[in-house]
């Protein structure tokens, strides 16, 4: 299995090169070819589900090749359970995104699909990177195609949205770069070795104040991506303006870059600083949960509503990461996947509405259940998943996050739990406005129900919604050992072992020292 990850990583680029050879006029051929490439890509990556051994090594399918010796940069890839799930999510959503844009994208079709494939490589690179330099290259690589997806194929205010996306991301990127460089030179200062290897950098403790500063540099970059309150205002604009496929990828995968960044880099690299910052970050996460839900409620635009709901949902994910126990972090990881599936599906649904009426205004709909019954059923299931109905996927994640976080921070969790009420309020209100009532607007009276293609886009996502809700064990068991290591790393105090492990050792150490029976009390 040498270079398995490299194959997965660069296959889309190979596909993009092939696409470049197809004449731009032949749109059908481009769409079909991209779909074929994306499906093959999915099939190539799918065996990860079985081949990854949860109980095995920390990182698997590791590739380690010297790259820029003078700088200590290595081409170093590997996956743990969390990156495996995020990878599978990514390769599943790409073909669906192609299928979902079949009619939506009608100009520069070739460029669109090439960028989509390049974007896929960028995202996967972030999930695979075990070297900060490699990570940073892919991090920046993925932003460029996204910028153009919004700026070229977006709605009326696409340029404004793209620029806003750019500004925020630029700010975060620069901060993180400074952080990476500072860490790089700190490591060299202590050991005399230049390296960008994540494992090597983690091995050398960073002194308190520098650690806090570096953590903040990373954390702000990731918090923008998540996005956490108050760094979220690029998101609604980006979503509303982006084409359906862009929104789907943006919500489902790109936002996870932020939470994944916390999980893979910011928190394990700077554990003490992460614990110091915990009340602030968890506090902002709680604010995000409530604030996102409130602002979502008053949106007249369905896409913007879903965008703000993401702010609320990602608040839960951040809360789970900072629960710093396995239950909460497991919830957080599964919720990253859940959000990708459910919100991805919601943005597909927004696209389906838009293709029919060329508007996202909630007031322009109403009574669609009567004219589009199949759509109604699928939309309802996705809505229920989004509001965390037990038996569907969202509940598993939210519950684990809250029950885990509650054990350490009951008050914050209590406030965040109110989010389940607010979510029901804004989602059901939107659903009712769009789907229930009588058809009052003439243009809605003859809307076609979902086509076979559209059903094919939503059905895999709905199947996952039910699967994870009813039987999450295969997902949870794949990530648990990785999450264990994460929690152990982040809760460890410099120079000592984590509390639980120390206790365990003490227990194990006891039997040999036990005094033989009958000898107690003797001098």
């Amino acid at each position, binding site marked *: 299995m040498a270079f398995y990850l490299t194959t997965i990583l660069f296959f889309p680029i190979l596909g993009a090169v092939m696409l470049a050879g197809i004449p731009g006029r032949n749109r059908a051929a481009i769409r079909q070819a991209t779909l074929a490439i994306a499906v093959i890509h999915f099939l190539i990556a799918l065996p990860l589900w079985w081949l990854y051994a949860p109980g095995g090594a920390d990182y698997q399918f590791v590739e380690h090749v010297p790259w820029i010796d003078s700088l200590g940069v290595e081409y170093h890839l590997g996956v743990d359970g969390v990156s495996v799930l995020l990878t599978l999510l990514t390769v599943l959503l790409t073909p669906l995104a192609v299928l979902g844009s079949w009619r939506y994208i009608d100009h520069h079709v070739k460029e669109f699909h090439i960028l989509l494939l390049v974007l896929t490589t960028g995202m996967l690179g972030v999930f695979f990177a075990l070297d900060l330099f490699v990570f940073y290259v892919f991090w920046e690589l993925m932003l460029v195609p996204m910028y153009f997806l919004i700026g070229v194929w977006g709605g009326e205010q696409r340029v*404004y949205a793209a620029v806003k996306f750019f500004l925020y991301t630029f700010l975060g990127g620069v901060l993180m770069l400074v952080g990476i460089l500072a860490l790089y030179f700190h490591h060299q200062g202590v050991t005399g070795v230049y390296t960008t290897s994540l494992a090597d950098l983690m091995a050398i403790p960073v002194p308190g104040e520098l650690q806090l500063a570096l953590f903040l540099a990373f954390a702000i970059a990731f918090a923008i991506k998540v996005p956490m309150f108050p760094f979220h205002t690029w998101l609604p604009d980006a979503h509303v303006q982006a084409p359906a496929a862009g929104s789907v990828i943006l919500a489902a995968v790109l936002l996870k870059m932020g939470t994944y960044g916390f999980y893979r880099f910011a928190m394990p690299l700077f554990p003490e600083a992460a614990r110091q910052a915990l009340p602030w970050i968890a506090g902002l996460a709680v604010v995000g949960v409530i604030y996102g839900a409130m602002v979502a409620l*008053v949106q007249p635009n369905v896409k913007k509503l879903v965008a703000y709901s993401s702010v609320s949902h990602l608040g839960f994910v951040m809360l789970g990461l900072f629960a710093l126990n*396995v239950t909460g972090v497991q919830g957080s990881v599964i919720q990253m996947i859940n959000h990708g599936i459910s919100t991805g599906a919601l943005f597909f649904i927004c696209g389906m509405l838009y293709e029919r009426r060329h508007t996202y205004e909630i007031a322009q709909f109403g009574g669609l259940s009567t004219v589009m019954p199949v759509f109604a059923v699928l939309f309802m299931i996705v809505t229920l998943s989004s509001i965390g109905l037990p038996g569907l996927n969202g509940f598993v994640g939210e519950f684990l996050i809250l029950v885990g976080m509650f054990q350490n921070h009951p008050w914050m969790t209590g406030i965040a739990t109110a989010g389940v009420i607010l979510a029901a309020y804004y989602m059901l209100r939107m659903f009712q406005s769009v789907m229930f*009532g009588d058809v009052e607007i003439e243009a809605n009276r003859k809307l076609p129900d979902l086509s076979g293609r559209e059903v094919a886009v939503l059905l895999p996502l709905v199947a996952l919604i039910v699967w994870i809700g009813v039987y999450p064990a295969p997902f949870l068991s794949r990530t648990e050992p990785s999450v264990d290591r994460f929690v152990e790393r982040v809760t460890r105090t410099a120079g000592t072992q984590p509390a639980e492990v120390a206790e365990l050792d003490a227990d194990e150490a006891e039997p040999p020292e036990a005094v033989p029976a009958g000898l107690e009390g003797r001098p």
Partner: protein
Amino acid sequence: MAANWIWLVPALPLAGVLVNGLLGRRIGKGGVSVIGPGMVGAAFAVSLWLFLDLAARAPEARTLSQNVYTWISAGDFRASVAFLVDPLSATLMLVVTGVGFLIHVYSVGYMHDEDRRGFARYFTYLNLFTFAMLVLVMADNFLLLFVGWEGVGLCSYLLIGFWFKDRANATAGKKAFIVNRIGDFGFLLGIFLMFGAFGSVAFADVLPSAATVLDAGGPLAFWICLFLFVGAVGKSAQIPLYVWLPDAMAGPTPVSALIHAATMVTAGVYMVARSHALYDMAPAVLAIVAGIGAATALYAATIGLVQTDIKKVLAYSTISQLGYMFLGVGVAAYAAGIFHLVTHAFFKALLFLGAGSVIHALHGEQDMRRMGGLKRALPVTYWTMLAATLAIAGIPPLAGFFSKDEILWRTWDAGHPVLWAIGLATAGLTALYMFRLFFLTFHGSFRGTGEQRQHLHESPPSMTIPLTVLGALSVVGGWIGIPPAIGQTLGGVPNAIESWLAPVFADAHAEGAAHAAGEAHAIPPMEYALMAASIAVALLGILAARYLWLTRPELPVRIGLQFRVAATVLSNKYYVDELYDAIVVRPYNALSHFAWRVIDEGLIDGLVVGGTGAVVRWQSRVSSAWQSGAIPTYVTVFFGGVVAILVYYLFG
């Protein structure tokens, strides 16, 4: 082994969901009419078998359980899909599948005007409800119970808004879901606290060790029980979260009978009774439960007195009767609370189905002011409704008398004379408003249109047979709980339900178990006195109703004019909906608008992003992003920065 087949009980209605949901239009209304009720009937049969299997065992061995699979396991947390069949859940299973089956059959007649799609959708939802309700009562842990809990809430939402073309129906469904979510918020916090204290959410881990883990009367026990009770208050429509139930009458009438009277709304009572080991450690919360129950019972009865919509009267009556059940469990008379849950399921389901039969005959008319004199045209409905009305009024020997009186007596016996008095007054009011409904509907002269009069008809057998069965149960259903005070004089008839439930509630009241065994026991004379008082009050209520709405029908109008303020307040339901709207809904919406317009668009976009003006300037610079060479700009700026930093570190 019966235990290996427990899973069948919820699986059968779930199979109905799949068949009706996926193939409903293909198999047609005929097929759906077989599958829908058939699956619930089959679940009843299996439940009965399990019940008999339990009954054949020694009392302390009456527990069956089945672990289907581990649902969630993450870190220390673990929850299984596992079922528990003990006397308490077996009782509820029989009610849910038994009464549920009758209502499914009734629905075949009631919903026959729906088109194929609607008909299939209706039975899909109704089967789904039955499945969720069975999960709720059969769960062996609090998390799975919560799954059923929210599942029935979902079905309630879907069925209240079944006729979604009318926006008001959809709104009522949404209100039900959201108000229930407020309760569920409490339930979740209760589970979080419980997991913190016990390290588990399984009944088998939590309940037996409640007495050792929790301090009696301590804060942990208090908060766990209080939070769980918040969930019960939402689901069982008690003060202050009852406001969704009257609106829920927007759903089809059989739905009101099944979900909003017989089963779902009693889930809160079941939950408190199930967790009684926790509540026994929190006497302060028990007092709150009893107080809220009594207050709700009286409060809802006063509103029921002036409603003119037949279903609204029954809705407030349900809220009131649920209050009785909470009064019962609140004074630690758990078996009495469950007993009333069972008899109430019989007579209240019947009252709703009877009302449905009336509405059916009048082509959708629900206003009692346009009814009257229906006795002759609807004989089966009339006689069965009479049985149910007498039962709820508390006339012996019908079902409601025994269960309600048991609660009242246990309240008095536990040393709560004030709560007892409230309960007694409510009993009188119940007889009054129920016979007002009965007389206005069936007696006097018909006040509807001539056309309605011409089309008056008794309902088809699919509807009248369930009415008859429930009518019989409303008469004899109470005989499973004859108190020793009467049982002894009848020659030692035991209190069957109390002794049946004794293994579940044993530690709660050993005295009850002794009662139940039918042992000769000195009956305090007070018990007979109180019994006489409740019968007298019920009779008084009926006579008053007869005088007011049959003999002197102009009198209620005059009373209304005399006490105009009181009448207005009552008919507007104490303006509680308006109050909530003013102090919760509007401020929340306004605050949300503020957050969006002022904080998001004003403050953050204005300040943090550095002014929208700057962005607009950018916008003109890169207005056609693809052609203008934005990539070079981007790359230059970015990697220029990288180089600058590198240079600073390497040579600075």
